[in-house]
Structure formats: structure tokens, C-alpha cells
């Protein structure tokens, strides 16, 4: 065999062998390293309804807005909740921030590579305009615009200063040590371009909304089409500033179609027949165990379920209204009596966690402030014996009648409580109301008890709005005027170390849920949203479904 012939034979075998090797190597590597995201594709998601208030994040925190708003306006503000751990703060529109020693002044350096969707550069002036609107509202043509609903939550502002080098300084009247954590709330989206809104305000249209100026944001997607009641279509923003770990520009998707689907049943059918890639977020649209069975039956492994801790199912008393619940022994008896694990199957659609667990079993990140249900951990029989004794001691052995405000959208929680408390002799008079009346009634003093609605910021200071005094916080779950709560929160906001902060938070919990039992925490609900298995890269927050709704890291496999 000549050298030439040998060379020919070896080449004949080497070439296929090379490709086989390459294939094997690629397969092996792909199992070791995660898949590389690919660009392109259209994601079709359901949205619970049309975003209210002209998409104005200063007016509403509706999930119908924020499910869409993340893509258009971005997932955060100057800062955002980190995608890998939503309890940490990451930079978003600011590159860095500093505070003075007293935490009364916060200075932010604004990114220089951010553009509004209409091509205008985003600057510190836009940030100042936004904070001015938030804290002070606006005036024009004799009309007044109200400040943002969350202005108080951000702190007591003194002034906002524009600094050189695209920086901005916020000066507060009091210490505000956790300002970046508060500002990272995904509800505080910047959806208000100064160059478009200021002229409208000057002309007297102080209520000008993001929708009025064409929904111009700085997020990873820009608006392409909005058909009220039908569709919100957003397309890739090619000048978006965020990049992934490999320095590839985000977002990956070409387009997202949000289909307005107020009816959860219609959403289920559309998803199960392949018309949707992801479900809507929002009460009623989150899946129950029963609905999941249908999804799994039809789609098997072609569907997965993103789980996020939802709100707390609770019973809160109106202490500003006369009745047996004024007696703390009665409130304690109710807390002891309720079979909390039963609530998960009977009232929360099969998903949730409660006492005696300290949290979900597969906690992906450390959460210092979310482990409340550590009280009343004795066996149910023991607790119920104690409850009956307390009721007798308080003089209500024969029970009593108590009003309970129930949201018509989800009456099952009220029915659960009614059935539970009947055993204690309490006749829970359910007052089931529609959304309009629910929004009014729950901030009123017209009912003896309720469950409340507001989901507070996950940082402990943010919970003042739901645990504080009624006169200052009308949407508080329990209606009370206990000044000690103010003092506890004041101490908390002045804590200087994480240990001190945790200790104070535990003290608040004990005071609210045990010592005074203003509120009976029953179980933490878990929100379940379906996605098709080819939807990759989804940032699922551990808590608060308003978080990570930008879909910038999502790609289709």
C-alpha cells in the first residue's frame, strides 16, 4: 500500500470520526453547561385584564399593569430586585449609589447608555422629573395632580437635587437607611418621560398618563400595538442596555403578545390547546391543584409551573368597632382554634404552607423576615382545648356573631373561616361583596373582621402600611390605633445591624400575631403560573409576583 493510498483510507475514516467525536463532545458539554439562550421567537402570554389607570405606575399596583409593565418600563427603578435573589438589591438605571452617614441623603449616578423608546436619551433630569411627580404631584393650567400612591412609602422628602455628571441626590427629612431596598420594589416603574409629559402638564393636562404619551419606556421591549380588551404587543428594544453573563444583549425574544383574558377558564382552554406559552398572573388566574390536573393530563411534560409565594391568608379584626373581639382572649381563642393546614387544601387551591413549618421546604434563598408562622405550634386538639377555655374565661362560651368582609372574587376563604369558627360557637356572618365595594369596604370601619388585600413590600419596614394604625394606614388589615406599633416600626427603621433588625421584626410579629392577636395568620398562599416547557430563562421570584416581569432573560428553546 502506497503512502498515498494509506493517507486516502485514513482520511476516509478520520472525517466521520471527527464529526462523531464533535457530536459526543457537544452532547457531553451541553449536559454539563446550561444551554445557550437563542435569539428570536414570539412569546404569547395571557394578561388578566387591560392595565388600569392609563398604565400609570404612580396610580395603581395592579398586576394587570405590572405583568406587562416590566417589559415596557423595565423590571426596576434606579435599582431593582436581583434576578438570582429577589431579596437583594441590584443596580438598574443607576450604576452606583451612596448615602451620607445619617442616611438622610442618597446620591445616585445614572447610567449614560439608556434611551427612551422614542430614541431620546434618558438622563438624571428624567429621574428628577419622576421623583418630583411622585413626591409633589404637579400643577398646570390651574389643575393639580396628586402625588404617587407610594410617595409616603419612599420616605419624607425634603428636596431633590440634580448634580453634575448625570447624578441625582435625594434629601430626606428623616433617616432612610433602607431607601434602595424600598426603591427596588418593582411597582415603582419609571413610565413618565419628561420630554413628553411636561408639555402636557404645562397645558393643564395634569392627569397625563403613560398611555396618553404612547407608552414610551426604557424597558427591554417597546410597544408595537395596544388594542384595548384584546392585545398588547411589544417588540424587542434594540437599544436596550442590559446584557447577559456572556455580554450578549438582552432581551432574547423578538416579541411578546399579551392577550387580554379576564376569564381564567378561557385562559385554561387556550393554554391547553397550545395558543398560549404562559399564563396570566393575578387572583383567579393562578392555578389550583384541580386545574393543574387538566394541564398535566393534556400536556404532560410540555408544561411546567412557576411557583411564587403569594399573599398571606389571614383573619384581621376591626378593633375600632365594638364587639367580643375587643377582648384579646377571644382573638387568641380564634387563633388557636383554626385548623391552619386544612386551609391549604380547602381555601388556597392546594398550594401553600403554614404552621408548624417555618417556610416552604425547598427555600431557594435565605429569607430573614418571612417565617412568621412559628406561634401556636401545639397539636390541634391541645390548641382547641385552650381556645374553648379562653372563650369561657372571656364570657363567650356560647359564642357570638361577627361580620366578615369577603371578596366576591374568592369567597372560598370566607366559607372556610365560617365552617372553622362554627365549632367555636362563632357565627361568622359573611358579607360577600363585588370588587367595587371590596375596594371601598376594606379601607372602611364598616365590618367586624376581614382578610385584607394589600401585599406589602417584602422588607419589614414596608409592612407598616398593613400592620400600622388605621388613621395613618387605612388599608391596614386589622383596624386599630395602637401607638406601640408606631414605636416598634420606628425602632426597626433605626436599626443599625441586620441582627438588630431581625430581633425587632420578631418583636413586631410576636406583638401583632401573639400578644395582641390583632391578626391571625392562617397560611401563606403559593401562586402557580403555567409555562410551556420550551419557555426558558424565566426569572421566577420567590415572593411577590410583581417581580421580574420584564421577560428580558426569557428565550424559546
Amino acid at each position: 500500500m502506497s503512502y498515498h493510498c494509506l493517507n486516502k483510507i485514513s482520511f476516509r475514516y478520520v472525517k466521520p470520526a471527527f464529526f462523531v467525536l464533535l457530536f459526543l463532545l457537544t452532547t457531553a458539554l451541553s449536559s454539563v453547561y446550561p444551554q445557550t439562550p437563542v435569539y428570536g421567537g414570539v412569546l404569547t402570554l395571557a394578561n388578566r385584564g387591560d392595565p388600569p389607570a392609563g398604565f400609570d405606575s404612580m396610580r395603581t399596583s395592579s398586576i394587570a399593569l405590572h405583568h406587562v409593565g416590566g417589559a415596557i418600563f423595565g423590571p426596576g427603578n434606579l435599582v431593582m430586585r436581583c434576578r438570582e435573589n429577589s431579596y437583594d438589591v441590584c443596580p438598574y438605571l443607576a450604576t452606583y449609589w451612596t448615602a451620607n452617614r445619617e442616611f438622610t441623603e442618597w446620591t445616585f449616578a445614572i447610567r449614560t447608555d439608556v434611551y427612551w423608546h422614542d430614541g431620546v436619551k434618558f438622563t438624571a433630569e428624567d429621574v428628577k422629573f419622576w421623583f418630583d411627580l411622585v413626591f409633589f404631584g404637579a400643577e398646570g393650567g390651574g389643575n393639580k395632580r396628586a402625588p404617587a400612591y407610594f410617595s409616603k412609602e419612599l420616605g419624607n422628602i425634603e428636596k431633590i437635587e440634580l448634580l453634575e455628571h448625570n447624578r441625582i441626590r435625594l434629601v430626606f427629612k428623616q433617616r432612610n437607611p433602607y431607601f434602595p431596598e424600598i426603591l427596588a420594589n418593582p411597582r415603582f416603574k419609571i413610565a413618565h418621560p419628561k420630554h413628553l409629559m411636561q408639555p402636557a402638564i404645562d397645558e393643564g393636562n395634569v392627569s397625563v398618563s403613560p398611555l396618553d404619551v404612547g407608552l414610551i419606556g426604557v424597558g427591554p421591549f417597546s410597544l408595537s400595538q395596544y388594542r384595548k380588551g384584546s392585545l398588547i404587543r411589544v417588540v424587542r428594544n434594540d437599544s436596550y442596555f442590559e446584557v447577559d453573563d456572556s455580554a450578549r444583549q438582552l432581551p432574547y425574544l423578538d416579541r411578546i403578545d399579551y392577550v387580554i383574558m379576564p376569564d381564567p377558564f378561557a385562559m385554561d382552554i387556550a393554554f391547553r390547546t397550545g395558543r398560549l406559552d404562559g399564563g396570566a398572573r393575578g387572583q383567579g388566574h393562578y392555578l389550583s391543584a384541580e386545574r393543574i390536573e387538566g394541564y398535566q393530563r393534556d400536556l404532560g411534560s410540555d408544561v411546567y409551573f412557576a411557583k411564587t409565594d403569594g399573599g398571606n391568608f389571614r383573619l384581621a379584626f376591626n378593633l375600632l368597632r365594638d364587639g367580643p373581639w375587643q377582648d384579646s382572649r377571644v382573638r387568641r381563642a380564634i387563633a388557636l382554634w383554626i385548623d391552619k393546614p386544612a386551609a391549604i387544601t380547602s381555601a388556597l387551591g392546594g398550594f401553600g404552607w403554614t404552621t408548624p413549618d417555618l417556610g416552604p421546604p425547598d427555600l431557594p434563598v435565605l429569607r430573614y423576615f418571612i417565617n412568621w408562622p412559628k406561634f401556636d405550634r401545639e397539636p390541634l386538639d391541645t390548641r382547641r382545648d385552650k381556645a374553648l377555655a379562653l372563650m369561657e374565661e372571656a364570657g363567650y362560651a356560647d359564642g357570638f356573631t361577627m361580620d366578615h368582609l369577603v371578596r366576591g372574587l374568592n369567597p372560598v376563604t370566607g366559607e372556610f373561616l365560617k365552617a372553622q369558627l362554627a365549632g367555636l360557637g362563632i357565627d361568622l356572618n359573611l358579607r360577600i361583596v363585588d370588587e367595587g365595594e371590596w375596594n371601598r369596604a376594606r379601607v372602611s370601619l364598616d365590618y367586624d373582621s376581614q382578610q385584607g388585600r394589600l401585599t406589602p413590600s417584602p422588607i419589614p419596614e414596608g409592612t407598616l402600611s398593613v400592620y400600622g394604625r388605621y388613621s395613618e394606614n387605612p388599608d391596614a388589615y386589622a383596624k386599630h390605633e395602637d401607638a406601640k406599633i408606631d414605636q416598634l416600626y420606628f425602632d426597626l427603621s433605626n436599626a443599625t445591624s441586620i441582627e438588630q433588625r431581625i430581633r425587632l421584626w420578631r418583636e413586631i410579629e410576636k406583638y401583632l400575631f401573639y400578644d395582641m392577636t390583632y391578626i391571625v395568620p392562617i397560611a401563606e398562599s403559593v401562586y402557580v403560573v403555567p409555562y410551556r416547557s420550551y419557555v426558558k430563562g424565566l426569572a421566577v421570584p420567590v415572593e411577590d409576583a410583581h417581580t421580574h416581569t420584564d421577560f428580558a432573560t426569557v428565550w424559546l428553546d
Partner: protein
Amino acid sequence: MGHYILRRFFTSIAALFIATIAVFMVLRILPGDAVLSILADTPHSVQMREALRNELGLDKPAYVQYLTWLGRIFDGSFGGRSFETGGQIGELIAAQLPVTLLVSGYSIILSCIWALPTGFIAGYKPGKLRDKFLNVFSLIGLSVPNIFAASIVLVGLLKIFRWSPPIIYSTPNENLAEHLYMAIWPVLILSLEYGSHLLRTVRAAVGETLKTQYIRGAKARGINPVSLLLRHAMPPVASITFSVAAAHFSALIGGAIVLEAVFGLPGVGRGLVQAAIARDFPVIQSYSVLLVGAFLLIQMAVDVLQRFLDPRQRTAETVFSR
């Protein structure tokens, strides 16, 4: 006739005006608060709430709010802005009305196509097997609630064909096939109910008309059955049918309200429900004007048509005028 139309027109305007006052007052009596619906699940202060109330003009006296809204009906915005969405109500209605008109129009056309002939067939020889069958069929059509029928249709399509109607609405101009795929299901359900009303009305009217003296006279003169039905029986039957069809128009709209939500059609019905939940007063008021106006207009048109078709009513009018 001209005098009659003019009189009807002015009474309709008066009725519409009264309806706007009634709707305005009822909305203010209803429990709930528009400002709190906007703020919904936001941690707001009392000051914030009052500032927003001031911004929306809800702190003004009721009559001022009413007159402001009434003024905006005529300024082109058809009632100003929505509290909930912030959008112009006129634009909202312009986008939603064609959807509802198309669905209602298709339903009426389809109902007429199947219900009028079958009504005639049933009424021409009552008591026969086909009459009994149509009677039972129409009874089912009237008894089955729209929402139940919609659920059956959707689950049936899912279970049998693994298919569901499109979820993104297309106008006939954009994509006729997608439009029809989406609209056909609510139209079928609506026409089942509406057509059943028509069928029963036509059946009863034909039956009654065929018993009258002049029909029996015509029969005795040997007029052929087709001519008898079309020339002699048709005018009174049409007159009754028009009036019943108009009376059930509100039921058709009611059905459309439910079905638009289930089938994802962005029509007036869905908009109205959303506005009612949000206590979006200007939108509800403007929609009410629209619906009451449409209803009055249809009633007026039917009355005029009845007079045109039925000479007895014109005679009665003349006698009454003298």
C-alpha cells in the same frame, strides 16, 4: 306618518335624558368608590385619596359632575375620560362598538336564516311531528344559559379536536378567516337563543294569522299556499316578529356581554362589565346612553316599520288623531 315620527323622536330624546339622570343617580347610590377602585391594592394615605378625588372632579357637587359629563357627551369625547384607564371614552367606544355590532349583526342574520323558515313551517301545520321537534329545540335554545353553552362549546372543542378558537381578535379586513373562527362560536350560541325567540314568535303568529277570517276567505278563493303565506299572512306576521325581535334585542346584548368575556372579543359588553366593576362612572354613563339610545332607536324604527307594514295601525292612528 311624518308627524308620528317627529313625535316619537322627541319622546325618545326625553326618555334618553331621563335615563341619563337615572343612571347617574343609581351609580352614586351603589356601594363602592371610583377613587378606591383606582387605588385598589395600593398603600395610600387619606390625603392621597382626597387629592385624587379632587383631580378627578369627584369632590364637586353631584349636579356639577352630571352637567360636566353631559357637556362632554357633545364635545366629541363622548363623556370625557375613563377613570380607570385614563383613555378617551369616544375612542374606547369607537374601538369596541364595531365588535359588538358585528357579533350582534351576525347573530341576528343567522337567527333570521334558520328561525324564520322553521317558524313558518312549524306554524303552518301545528301539532305535527316537525312542529313538536322544533318546539322542543327552541325550548332548549331558550333554557340553556349562554355561559353554560359557552363552556360546553369550549370544553367540547378541547376534548374532541384539541382545538380552541383564536385568542387575538382580528377585524374582517385584517384576517377574515381568523375573525370568523373567533366570532362564530358566540354567534352560534347567541343565535340559538335569539333564533328560538323568533321561531316561537313566528310559529305563534303564523298559527294565529291562518285562523283569521281573511285568510280563510283567501283559502276559499283557491289562492295557492305559497302566495297565501307570502302575500296575505306575511305582513301581520312580520309586524309581530319585528316587535318581538326588537324587544329581545336587549337580551341579545346581555348575552353578548357574557360571551365577549369568555371568547375574548373586545366588545362593548366586556367594556361595560369592566367599567361596572371598577365603578368607572363616566364610562358606564356613556355606555348607558349608547345602549339606551340604540334601544330607543330600534324601538322607534320598529314602530315606524310596523305602521308601514300593517295598515290597521295607520288607520288607528288617523282615527285617534281625529
